[in-house]
């Protein structure tokens, strides 16, 4: 009996290990396949629910809204957060540093930052979405409308009426 339960435990252990190291294929809209660990893929709530619903793990997941360049970057984030532990203070600090460097690099290429943001939104990767949207908001805050236009390359298209309306509301500017 003892050996039996021991063997069962070992089998369960092995299974758990296997599911931990199960690989999942994500395919970009350009048809490029990315193989990631399940832990990494589970950073995405969208993929997580598909996997948990017994979805076609073997066939992989096509992501028609995400291009290869963006997907590669998103996976970089998911790998870091999915495959690494964050239990100790040091581990958490390492992750925080990763996030900081990750977003600083993205911030240098605004168009890419927006693509990653949209992908994070589509894939429901909460941490990444919060990171990128907060970064964009940080660029906006404390700036005048003109400064914001410059920062984002937006053309002025308000009509006199729009302006009037905004002025009416904004009495304290």
């Amino acid at each position, binding site marked *: 009996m003892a050996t039996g339960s021991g063997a069962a435990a070992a089998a369960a252990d092995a299974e758990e290990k296997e599911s931990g190291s199960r690989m999942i294929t994500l395919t970009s809209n350009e048809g490029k396949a990315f193989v990631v660990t399940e832990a990494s893929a589970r950073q995405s709530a969208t993929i997580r629910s598909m996997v948990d619903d017994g979805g076609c793990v073997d066939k992989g997941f096509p992501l028609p809204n995400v291009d290869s360049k963006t997907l590669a970057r998103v996976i970089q984030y998911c790998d870091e957060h999915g495959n690494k532990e964050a239990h100790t203070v040091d581990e958490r600090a390492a992750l925080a540093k990763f996030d900081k460097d990750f977003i600083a690099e993205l911030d240098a290429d605004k168009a890419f930052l927006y693509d990653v943001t949209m992908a994070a939104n589509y894939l429901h990767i909460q941490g990444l979405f919060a990171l990128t*949207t907060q970064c964009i908001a940080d660029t906006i805050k404390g700036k005048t409308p003109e400064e914001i236009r410059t920062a984002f390359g937006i053309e002025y*298209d308000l009509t006199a009426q729009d302006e009037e309306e905004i002025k009416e509301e904004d009495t304290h500017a």
Partner: protein
Amino acid sequence: MDFITVEREAKLRRPRDPSDHSTSCDGDDDSPISHLSDDVLVHVLGFLPTATDLMRARAVSRWWCRLGARVPLLRFLCIDRAFDRQETLDRFIAFINNVLTRRAAGQSDAGVEELTISLKSGMSSVDVAEVDAWIRYGMQHVSNTFTLELNIPLRSGNNSNHRYLDDDEDDDDDNNGMILAELPSSPRLKSVMLSLSNARLRLPTAAAFDSLVDLSLENIKTPRLRVFHMRYTSLIGKLTISAPRLEEFILPYTGRVSVINVEDMPCVRILEIDLWLLGGPQYGGHINKDRIRLLQCCRFLQFLTIRLKDNGNAEVELMKDVPELPHVTSLSLRVIEMNEMYDIASVLCVIGRCKFLKHLELDIKMEHWERPTEVSNQNQKDYHIISLEHLQEIKITCSYMRNH
């Protein structure tokens, strides 16, 4: 982006403007930011720390203007020294009111899920009628979290000779308190945080104000209200609450709340109150009676924090009315200025009511105490009646206050 939708919505925003032939958002479309969807940009704008930032963002382009109106979070923060100028503050208040009016009008502007108004200034003042209107607005139009933090003098009306906020404790009580009209019902609001320091007015003795002297939350139907925090509202005369589904009730520093009137609140799990005697039993006694009745109304409490201060022996008698609280698993007692044996008796009395306690925290600040650490430990040991079989964690801190 869907141009048709954009144009249609842009028109909807100004339905009374026949000359408005909306153009598409060409400018934005050329910029990389147009990679973002409307919803995502609304989310981004929601991260802006203040309504002022949001206002500026709305002045960027037609697209942003439209999306800015959809942000459900409004945070009006005035913590800048610039607002010490009355004129600046008044303009800011007008801004708050403009935005709120617009949101309440509905149309294409989104409702407000979270409203924060935080005003801090020592120099300028706010008309109490504004405060009244904000509170009513918060209760009526905010669907989730309403925070009002005022650390600013209040005045009554526009009379420049207003008298407000002196620290004369001997005022006729009839003249003290916040003016608040009857609050409307709030079927949706989940969390209210009112932090109204300085919320004290000396009102004219006109009869019209008589019924408004107290903060009264009487008759508000807040069936879904789950969290209620009031801090620094030390000068409010009356608090009457009917909130049957309240789960969290925080009421510290309210030494002068003379009447707390609560109905049964079986859902309250977290309660924070103070029990202290100020200026003799004729004054403080009924405060504590109210508090004890509050405890009786929250029979299913799990987390209880009580601040005890300067109890006289009359209080020990009162403490015996503390009900049995069998669901309390976590008790935190903060004793301030302990200087009599009575305090220990009160403390032990409360602990004795919480038979199934798992976590006990005792924080004692002492004055003129000869053997502080030993006394508390000794009393724990000597009080044989209290048996806390479920206790897992105990934390006792004593600190000495020396008078120089």
